C-alpha cells in the first residue's frame, strides 16, 4: 500500500497526530481534532491523517 515509511514517521513524531502529503509531514498537532481543523484552516487537502504513539505507551488493542 505505501512506500512512505510509517514506522519511521511514527518514531520521529511520537506522541503527535500527523498529516502526511506526498511523502512529507505537512502538519502535526497533539490532538486529531486540532490537526484536522488546522488542515482545513490552511486549505491543505489530500493529506493522510494518523497518530504516532509515544514509545512509552502501551500497545493498542483495537481502538484502544
Amino acid at each position, binding site marked *: 500500500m505505501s512506500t*512512505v515509511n510509517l514506522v519511521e514517521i511514527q518514531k520521529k513524531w511520537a506522541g503527535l497526530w500527523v498529516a502526511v502529503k506526498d511523502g512529507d509531514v505537512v502538519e502535526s498537532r497533539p*490532538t486529531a481534532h486540532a490537526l484536522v481543523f488546522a488542515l482545513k484552516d490552511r486549505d491543505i487537502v489530500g*493529506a*493522510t491523517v494518523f497518530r504516532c504513539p509515544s514509545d512509552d505507551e502501551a500497545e493498542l488493542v483495537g481502538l484502544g
Partner: protein
Amino acid sequence: MGEGDFEHTYPYLEEHRGADWHWLDRPLLRPSVLATVTGPQETSDLLLALVDSGCDHVLVPEWMAMRIGIELDDRRSSTIRIGGSSRRVQFAEATLNLAHPQTEVGESTPDFVHNWTTLVGFMDWPPLAMTLLILGQAGFFDEFTVTMSRHSQALTVSHQEDFDSRYESPIVRNAPVASPRFEP
C-alpha cells in the same frame, strides 16, 4: 460492482512497536485500508482505517460530523464500551470511499475503488487512538467479503457474494427462525 471483477488486496501496515516489546521478534502489523468519509458538505481527509472484525459498527470521532457537515440526532444513539469506558455513539448515514490498494499514505490524489452509504457511529474518540476510522462488521464487513491472512500479512476485499460462492455447504444448519439471514 459486478461479481468476480471486484477483488483488491491490501497489505497489512507495519506500525512502530515500542521499546517495551524488545523481547519480541515480530513486527506490529495492522489490517488497514485507506478511506475517506463523505457527508452532505465535505469529504474527510484520507484516513488510515483499522479493519476491525470485533467491532459491529463503523465508527469515527464525533467532531467528524461537523467537519463533513452531518447533523447528529440523539434519538439515534446508544452506548458502547470501548477503550475501558462507556461512550455514547450517535449514528447517521455517511458515505465511505475505499481507496485503491496502491494508494500510498499521503497520496494527494488517491483513486477509489468503491463507495457506499452506510450507518456510521460518531463518538467521543479515545485520545490515544491511532486511527480516525474503525471499519466493523455492519458497514464494512457486510458490504464485501473480507478475507484476512496474518500468514500472508494482507487482507482482500472482494464481492459481497464471494463467501457463499466459495463455501458450497450451508454454514449454519437448522438456524433458528428468529435469526434469518440479514439482507443489508
